[in-house]
């Protein structure tokens, strides 16, 4: 610390009204997303784990439930064909529902507060989480689809079907990521996030058509599944991945998911206001 140059120089930061809000939101979202990717890529262990986990899902369930496809009323194809959307969707939920832990870490470290006292647009903070998580989910989903192909799975719906699977998984991931963020911001306790996730993941997964077609479910479970966003995602993707997709059904369930995701993101932004009261 020998150079005693001045901190207050002549260059001035542009004044706020000169930058339109929308453009500022977009550039801020870009910078904050880039930050998350940089951190993600710099932790190779984390990167490897996020790839290994879906592989384990795929082969564990693939081996365990292989014979289910032979049950009467299951429908055509191998169990692996059936399983891939199930594992992709389950992974989208289980990977994103921990987002609240990330925000808690940022709060504890003081990072969130540091950003909140800069002109950073609040929405960019939430947007960056959505974009980064969405990209990460899409990437994981793509890896699973590729591995499934290697293991001999068929994708009769072709490229369009796979695209729907990946987009729907990312949107579902956004739903759970944003809800998890909101829970973390409001509860401010890791325990709450952990308890909620542990409580929710298995019932949500098994009360959907992830591993078992609705025709083989008990009646009450089939009723419950109709209100389960995981099941919306699975119904949409399974249809899109068939040789003869029912696009109206895909659009209907897809729209429901997008609506729910928008609500979750809105809720997540609202919690910043609650945070300001408690900080």
């Amino acid at each position: 610390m020998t150079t005693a140059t001045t901190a207050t120089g002549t260059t001035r930061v542009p004044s706020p009204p000169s930058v339109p809000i929308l453009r500022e939101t977009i550039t801020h979202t870009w910078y904050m997303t880039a930050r998350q990717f940089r951190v993600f890529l710099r932790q190779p262990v984390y990167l490897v784990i996020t790839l290994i986990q879906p592989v384990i899902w795929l082969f564990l369930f693939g081996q365990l439930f292989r014979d289910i496809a032979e049950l009467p009323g299951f429908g055509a194809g191998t169990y692996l064909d059936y399983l891939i959307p199930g594992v992709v969707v389950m992974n989208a939920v289980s990977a994103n529902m921990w987002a609240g832990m990330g925000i808690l870490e940022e709060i504890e470290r003081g990072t969130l507060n540091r950003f909140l006292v800069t002109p950073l647009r609040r929405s960019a903070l939430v947007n960056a989480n959505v974009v980064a998580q969405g990209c990460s989910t899409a990437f994981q989903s793509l890896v699973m689809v590729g591995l499934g192909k290697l293991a001999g799975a068929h994708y009769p719906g072709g490229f369009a079907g796979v695209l729907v699977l990946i987009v729907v998984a990312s949107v579902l991931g956004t739903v759970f990521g944003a809800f998890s963020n909101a829970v973390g911001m409001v509860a401010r306790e890791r325990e709450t996030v952990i308890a909620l996730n542990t409580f929710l993941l298995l019932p949500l997964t098994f009360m959907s058509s992830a591993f078992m077609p609705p025709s083989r479910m008990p009646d009450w479970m089939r009723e419950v599944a109709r209100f389960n966003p995981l099941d919306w995602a699975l119904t949409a993707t399974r249809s899109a991945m068939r040789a003869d997709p029912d696009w109206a059904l895909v659009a209907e369930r897809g729209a429901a998911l997008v609506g729910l995701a928008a609500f979750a993101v809105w809720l997540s932004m609202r919690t910043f206001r609650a945070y300001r009261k408690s900080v």
Partner: protein
Amino acid sequence: MKHTERTAATVHDGRTPGHTGPAGTGAPAIEAHDLVKTYPVKGRPQGVRALAGLSLSVAPGTVFGLLGPNGAGKSTTVKILTTLAAADSGTARVAGHDVTRDPARVRRAIGVVAQRSGADPAATARENLILTGHLFGLRGREPGRRADHLLDRFGLTEAAHRPVRTYSGGMQRRLDVALGLVHHPEVLFLDEPTTGLDPEARADMWEEIGRLAGEGLSILLTTHYLDEADRLAARLAIVDHGRVVAEGAPEQLKSRLHGDAVHVDLLDPAGPEVREALARVPGIREITVEARAVHARADHGAAAVPEVLAALDHVGARVGAVTVARPSLDDVYLRHAGRRFDATNPAEAGGDAAPVEDAEVADASDTREGETR
């Protein structure tokens, strides 16, 4: 309010560059009026009152110290002034902008160094600085240039491309200050900038704060270290239970006490005439006479010494030594908060409180030895 315009630069042993900043505008850099803030707490329906009507005013281009123990309301004040938290009532303006009505302008005008670092540990120092530059609207090559300049200034150039998590406490703190300066703020908030630093890193930080003050920044510094406030702040406010209990320049605060302690060691045992002689000296009071020692208080101890000596000489008392002790901020704190400063801070027992206590114990034992000899 009369601001004693003692510029911040004069309180740093002349180590800062001599020029003072553009303090001429006159409008306060920070003005808080009657801030009240209550936090909700489970099981306590009325919550916990962190601020109970806190007011303060910081003149531009000066260092203002907010001194008080943990939980006194210092950090809450900083959070409100930096737009992080909303006050229940009261108003505050920072750099001329209202924190409630115009938080966006306040955020562009302030740099904040919070208690917890907030730097991204997985990113490098340079990346942290560049991101901050981008968020403040710097474009093109400007963020990189600004980052390199600050890295150089804070002695972090060599470590610029290492992840922040590998940094020592002192380096991390220097980066925190650099992050607060990226956009040339008018007002800088330093919330306990030296807590947890080793003595060397602390001395570095003090020097840096002095330098910043010399460059004309207005600085609000919170600390629970008396020596830090005494050394760096041109004015300070003592905060206790969410309100300011005393405010002024450190010297003013100290001179508002009963005055300096004057101790006289006599060569012969004192007779009653000694007390009578001293009682006639103007400004001397609270006189206690022991066998060969006299203790008294004086408004201005050093100025009173010649008169004390003359009075003693007049009655034939031979003087061995005279000492005058200036009141410390600890005394000020004791007076205004009703308890000793370090006693309010048991969590910090391992920190700076310990040497102070040691010094007092040492003094006491010296006196005892003197008496028994």
